[in-house]
């Protein structure tokens, strides 16, 4: 009898194994063949002079070497670092402030909460034009205010048009577009904090700042840390949000895109660039996870 039960349980277990794998197989297969395989293939391509219709020629480390020797590459690494740093800090801080505000009670809170999410859900392609218009030197409101009303500039300038200022516009745009994500994550963590903690602190005479510093901040440390990590990963790889707003900001993704698909279309070097970009990211993640998240 016990024997019979055991075999039956075993049978059910292996049936579950089989079903488990069977159900997840399509997803795993698609992800492996469209994500893992291309990454490996990208590494492979980075060693070749890639020709789209004929065979590739093996060139060894030539692509990597010429990418690393190129001063444009280092310039675009710098641009990427500036972009990633300021967008990450900006989205996190602004998201935190908005989350703290939305955690209070006030009239029409429901409506305000959904309006705040608009930048995050709207298609990039449609909002970039609104931003282009806002900064347009002839018609835009920014120049109107800065030149005509405040007199900061003596003449209207094209902020998106020049590479040195365009990166800052791209940063502001990215903060506007992505802060709702940080806000949502932090808000949902804030709502999970035990209210008694605050009440006890208040009884003990803690000021608002002290309550924030010693209760709220430790409670949201982990979620904020994870948001920063995700933000760095996503912003490091950002393409559309920058490229559609302005092609003047040559972060690594855009630089790679131009290398591989515009002009001479050097896909081998493009692949080498994408690989180097990926390795830089992995390096950062490893350090961050160890030092900040202390996993």
């Amino acid at each position, binding site marked *: 009898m016990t024997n019979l039960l055991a075999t039956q349980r075993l049978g059910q277990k292996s049936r*579950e*194994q089989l*079903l*488990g794998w069977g*159900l*997840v197989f*399509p*997803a*795993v297969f*698609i*992800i492996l063949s*469209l*994500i893992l*395989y*291309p*990454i490996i*293939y*990208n590494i492979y391509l980075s060693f070749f002079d890639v020709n*789209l219709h004929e065979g590739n020629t093996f060139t060894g480390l030539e692509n990597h070497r010429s990418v690393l020797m190129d001063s444009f590459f280092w310039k675009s690494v710098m641009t990427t670092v500036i972009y990633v740093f300021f967008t990450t800090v900006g989205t996190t801080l602004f998201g935190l402030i908005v989350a703290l*505000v939305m955690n209070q*009670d*006030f009239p029409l809170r429901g409506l*305000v*909460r*959904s*309006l*705040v*999410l*608009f930048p995050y*859900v709207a*298609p*990039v392609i*449609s*909002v970039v*034009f*609104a*931003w282009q*218009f*806002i900064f347009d030197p*002839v*018609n835009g409101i920014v120049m109107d205010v800065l030149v005509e009303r405040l007199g900061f500039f003596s003449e209207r300038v094209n902020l998106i048009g020049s590479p040195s200022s365009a990166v800052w516009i791209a940063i502001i745009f990215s903060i506007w577009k*992505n802060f709702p*994500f940080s806000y*949502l*994550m932090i808000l*949902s963590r804030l709502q999970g904090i035990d209210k008694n903690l605050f*009440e006890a602190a208040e009884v003990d005479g803690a000021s608002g700042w002290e309550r924030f510093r010693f209760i709220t901040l430790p409670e949201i440390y982990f979620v904020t840390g994870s948001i920063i990590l*995700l933000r760095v990963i*996503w912003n*490091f790889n950002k*393409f559309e949000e920058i490229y*559609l707003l302005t092609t003047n900001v040559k972060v690594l*993704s855009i630089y*790679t*895109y131009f290398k*591989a698909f515009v002009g001479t279309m050097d896909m081998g070097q*493009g692949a080498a660039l*994408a690989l180097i*970009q*990926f390795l830089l990211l992995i390096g950062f993640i490893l350090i961050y996870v160890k030092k900040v998240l202390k996993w």
Partner: protein
Amino acid sequence: MVTKRSPIRSIGFFILIIFIVSFCIFPFFQMLSTSLKYQWDWGNPSLIPTQINTEAYKELLNVGQNLKNVPESILELLENTPDMTKAQRDTILAKYRNSGDVFPFPKYFLNSLALSGVAALLSVFIAILGAYSFSRLRFTGRSTVQRGVLFVYMFGGILLLIPLYKVCVSLGFLSTKGGTFGALLVIYMVQTLPVSLYMLGNFFRTIPFSIEEAAMIEGSSRLGTIWRIIIPLSISAIITVYIYSFMIAWNEYLFASVFLKGYKDLYTLPMGLRALFVSKNAVWDRIMAASVLTATPVIALFMIIQKNLTGGLSEGGVKG
């Protein structure tokens, strides 16, 4: 926690809220306002148009455009020859339609709709099975697979673009319209798949297993319970995930820009709008009207799923 605030602090607080809200929605008002302005009104910093101009919308949606640009004399001629067949009339009219710089908005809209709609459908279908497997079944390698799915978050599109483009060219997909469409469809599906898997997996875990167990005691198979119990119980979550995947695909530009290079007919909205913007026919009111029309369905869908989505987003840590 509700504490009494001094009036000055309350006023400060409301100013802060007003600042946040205007920062968020100002670009949307700018978009709407410019799309309704005449060209002579663009430099006017006020968001309210001096005079409403709906011409851009009419042109994009092809409303009342048939007889535009047709000379009076031709119209008269058509009117005075009643025995002409409809086909003949249309051929004459077609000559005067300035097809050169008409932006085929409805076509791009339908392309986007078809691509995003089908890709999201496939993604959700495959994700339902995978997510069920994650949340209910025990099998070796489950956690590896689950973590592997999250790993996908780390790859930017640019890393996949070159190899996938090369593969699709080598396999000859990009030499036909159908192949190009299919290739993009699959790429969009895989981009939305991790999100779908994650969000659905989280949701399925909230459904008590006892309901399923009861059905299985009654003799229902695992697949039967997915179909009869899990799907009906989580239909609102499934719709949310579908719409979210749809939105991701609707936004996509990087792959479309490379894959659709040769096929103007297959352009999606992001491709079309970008092409319009860099063309010599770029006119602010048209671009803004197209932007408004591109954003509208997405924002409308978002309003429908808002409650579920915000929950799912903060639980799942969804890509953006």
